């Protein structure tokens, strides 16, 4: 595969960057995330997660099911702050 392929579309991270980091010893999803911001964008790793975990599995000889993904954090999808504020006030009334 072309190494310039974008793996994380939220933060423009290429396959080459991911592979280089794994070579340098950043071999967990969380470590790669903190250097590249992959998984921190609006999709919250829904696109890049599997791809990066597969790269880690291939490079380290582990089974992909043993690779830990990031902690899934709320909210599940992006929500406007104004809507949250409105709902919070409605509940107070």
């Amino acid at each position: 595969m072309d190494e310039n392929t974008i793996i994380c579309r939220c933060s423009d991270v290429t396959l080459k960057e991911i592979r280089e980091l794994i070579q340098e010893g950043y071999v967990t999803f969380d470590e790669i995330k903190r250097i590249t911001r992959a998984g921190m964008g609006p999709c919250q790793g829904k696109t890049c997660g599997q791809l990066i975990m597969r790269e880690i599995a291939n490079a380290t000889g582990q089974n992909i099911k043993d690779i830990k993904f990031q902690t899934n954090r709320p909210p599940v999808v992006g929500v406007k702050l104004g809507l949250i504020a409105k709902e919070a006030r409605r509940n107070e009334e």
Partner: protein
Amino acid sequence: MKNKAEVVIIGGGISGCSIAYNLAKKGVKDIVVLEKDYICSGSTGRCGAGVRMQWGTEMNCKIAKKSIEFYENANEILQYERDVEFKQKGYLLVADTEHEMEQFKKNIEVQHSCGVPSKMLSLKEAKEIVPYLNTDILKGAAFCDKDGFLNPFHTTDAFYRAAKRLGAKFYTFTEATGIKVENGRVTGVETNKGFISTNVVVNAANAYAKNICDMVGVDIPAYSERHQILVTEPVEPMQDPMVMSFRLNFYIQQSPEGTFIMGRGDENEPRGLKVASSWQFIEEMAKTIELVLPPISKLRVIRQWAGLYNMTPDKQPIYDKAENVEGFYIALGFSGHGFMFGPITGIAMSEIILEEEPTIDVSMLNLSRFKTGRLLLEPSVV
């Protein structure tokens, strides 16, 4: 894993990495850093990414100023291949009561005595910096253009890589489970991966520092407390400074990626090590932002998370060596500003360990101040 080291540092956050770098730079061989998870996985990696010189105590002002001056040249000094993303667009502190305005004036006097270029601003001047700031509810503001944003992951990575190049060894996913003391002297550290004999142990575990101190029977008055943060989707640059209020209880800054990072404290937060997110936080945060910075409430929040402040009674850190256990050193209790003090934590601790002349005299931040009662309370923490 090595079974012998000159120094073992517990904690792979900004403090541990900075201490390792400074000791290595001064020629200490055989430095081992133990991190129970991965580098920057604790409080540093969860922090709000802001750095400021605007504090209320002389000690905090001095440490922050010197740290920020380091950060201005961090990429070069640490020879970092990436970028620590330091952006100095200032901190705009806003006050909504006359009482807080008085506190700002007192703080600025302290700040000026330490060479911090802060100033009071009128509401009109504040609005020139952040045009959509709702000044109707405010009385005034304070500003310092040297304050700003810094990427915590890259900054810690920069210290980590620099220390590693100088020979320090980092063992991640390796937890200190016990400390061996013989005849009042540290002789080694037990980990989940084996024993390392050493005569010097540095406790840089911040949120977990009390657990480490308990291993050697050193009593510290610090406790951990959850603080929460959220981040929005990225948008075009629209806000230069961090906007912060102690009384309205919030801070909010636009990162260089365009996301807005914001957080607040909760006075009813119980002590503990819990880092789960709560819906109460996101609701209170959303209401506050809608009131103070209305246009920001049109942005989508994409993630919320929590981290731990390690609090001391005067909200200033403790840099010291233990009196009753020779070879045991502590750098803890950063009370929410350990990331911004990182460079000085490394310098000060290396000087205490190597018994060198201090760059900044931090002897006031000793452990015994809590017994003698010589406390200088920091009034400016969210």
